């Protein structure tokens, strides 16, 4: 069983999956915050490799990506950081990035480097299953889970396609929109999650727009896990990671 799959085999526990941009606001902050996330109840951490043109991201992650790139963060540096983090934490680490940096690194070399760095999975929002065949074949050989996404616009046919191809879990994008903290959950998120649930048996984690413990709690009643990104990036802006620890603790309590 992959490290990610075993997260979802613990009965009753809902997975808490925070996202951070590597190198935002600094590399030191990334190295410190991931162990803090793990201590406070995160089950998986998404490490964002910044990309210059993050077209699925809202202003918060656009800004953190831009800032990280200015700090000189590259895929190679993210791999180095992941390797250091792997020595400090046991929970699964997943890279989230866009396809071009991976493609440019080379699919095979990138997956090999991920194995070397202790990375367990990949989330690539601009790589739908139709285009993911090559990366998928390599990732599977190296036991890296390629996690595909579904959105409220996904048809039944696409839900089945993603269910067949996604490994680890399926990432449900809660809104038709970009990433970003929102005051309210979208009106029809429950309809969407239920629709997917009826068709697939894999673990479902919901992300995009979840920013408070009470939202997380509501989502977890239907889903197997929640993904929280932009709110954490906002909390990290100052460079002080303590508020992030508190925030994660609050989310954990809401989920348990």
């Amino acid at each position, binding site marked *: 069983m992959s490290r990610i799959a075993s997260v979802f085999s613990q009965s009753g526990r809902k997975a808490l999956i925070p996202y951070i941009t590597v190198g935002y606001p600094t590399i030191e902050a990334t190295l410190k915050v991931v162990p803090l996330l793990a201590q406070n109840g995160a089950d998986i951490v998404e490490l964002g490799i910044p990309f210059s043109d*993050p077209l699925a991201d809202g202003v918060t992650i656009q800004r953190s990506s831009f800032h990280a790139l200015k700090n000189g963060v590259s895929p190679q540096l993210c791999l180095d950081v992941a390797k250091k983090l792997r020595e400090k934490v046991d929970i699964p680490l997943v890279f989230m990035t866009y396809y*071009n940096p991976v493609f440019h690194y080379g699919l095979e070399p990138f997956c090999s480097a991920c194995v070397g760095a202790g990375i367990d999975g990949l989330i690539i929002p*601009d790589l739908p299953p139709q285009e993911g065949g090559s990366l998928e074949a390599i990732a599977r050989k190296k036991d890296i889970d390629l996690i595909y996404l579904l959105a409220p*616009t996904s048809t039944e046919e*696409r839900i089945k396609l993603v269910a067949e191809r996604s490994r680890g879990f399926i990432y449900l994008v809660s809104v038709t929109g*970009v990433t970003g903290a929102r005051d309210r959950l979208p009106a029809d998120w429950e309809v969407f999650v239920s629709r997917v649930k009826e068709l697939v048996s894999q673990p479902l984690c919901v992300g995009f727009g979840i920013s408070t413990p009470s939202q997380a709690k509501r989502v977890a009643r239907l889903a197997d896990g929640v993904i929280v990104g932009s709110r954490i990036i906002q909390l990290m802006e100052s460079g002080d990671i303590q508020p992030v620890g508190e925030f994660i603790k609050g989310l954990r309590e809401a989920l348990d």
Partner: protein
Amino acid sequence: MIPDARGYFGDYGGQFVPETLMPVLDELTEAYTKAKDDKDFWRQFETLSRDFSGRPTPLYFARGLTQHGGGARIFLKREDLAHTGAHKINNALGQGLLAKKMGKRRIIAETGAGQHGVATAAVCAMLGLDCIVYMGEEDVRRQSLNVFRMRLMGAEVRPVSSGSRTLKDAINEAIRDWVTNPDTYYLLGSVVGPAPYPAMVRDFQSVIGREAKEQILAQEKRLPDYIVACVGGGSNAIGIFYPFLDDKDVKLVGVEAAGRGIESGQHAAPLMAGTVGVLHGTKSYILQDDSGQIRETHSVSAGLDYPGVGPEHSYLKDSRRAQYVAVTDDQALESFQLLCQTEGIVPALESAHAIYHAAQMAKSLDKEQIIIINLSGRGDKDMDIVAKELGVEL
């Protein structure tokens, strides 16, 4: 078949977009496939191309420019005379009609030079559709006349302040809007982006090449030896190349923007100096750094200032059916003035890149040979930039 069922031209193309948009692209592909076989749709396109856009545009023998070079005879395909001042109207009209057919009410578009934005604004005003245009702040500044034109025709222009604040960032922002509003119709302005855009935009633009072919056969009783067009995303170039692809003796030349020189790194020439990658949903040659980040570009002409290029051009480059070269800012400015003086025609700065290369080439060719330049647009929008570059105060 090119492109294949997955939207690939050889190794290039595809659909690298967020899942939210995949069903939307499926819907668009289906609608376009149907429209393609719909005689009424094309009759409407042709009628409006004639009465609204002013087609066919002339194929004009450029006597002055030809004499200046003293070699090959040069003809200009006068897209500058099309309504709103550039070839962009062909695609805007085609997609506008398709959007209407699909029952869409809200149209979004991106623009660089503003020509695609103006064309889209005009078509939306004519068809009674809502129009929002994303434009980089830098381009809003350097093409302010076009911003005013769009607003006059009822479009909302949204300046984009992220990244390099040019065309690339306007496309990012338009895609973000589209992901948020999947019922909206995204009227993309060049042969870039995910399938079906590269093939669909090509089909609407190939009216240029079909006309040019008929016109040169009528005027000269033979096909040209060369066709030269500037390449930003590549829509005016594909538009004139496409109907000649099977005429193997016709040499096709695409001209990219070399900016301050390819060596300087400050250019917008992905086919000349780029590597294969994925940008804005399609696999093609792009300008990127060692870690796969998209590089900032530079060109004096906003319409060519883009780090990617249509996948079909990448295919034509690799297969050597077309040849690609690059022309600098200074060379483009030089030929901009040359055309003004020899022909009494003020070209767009984008088109001036093609003029420079064709004029150079003509010198070494003999007088029997024929070059057609796609004069993709007129230069009214560029007066401020050219005046500034020439040190003239307006």
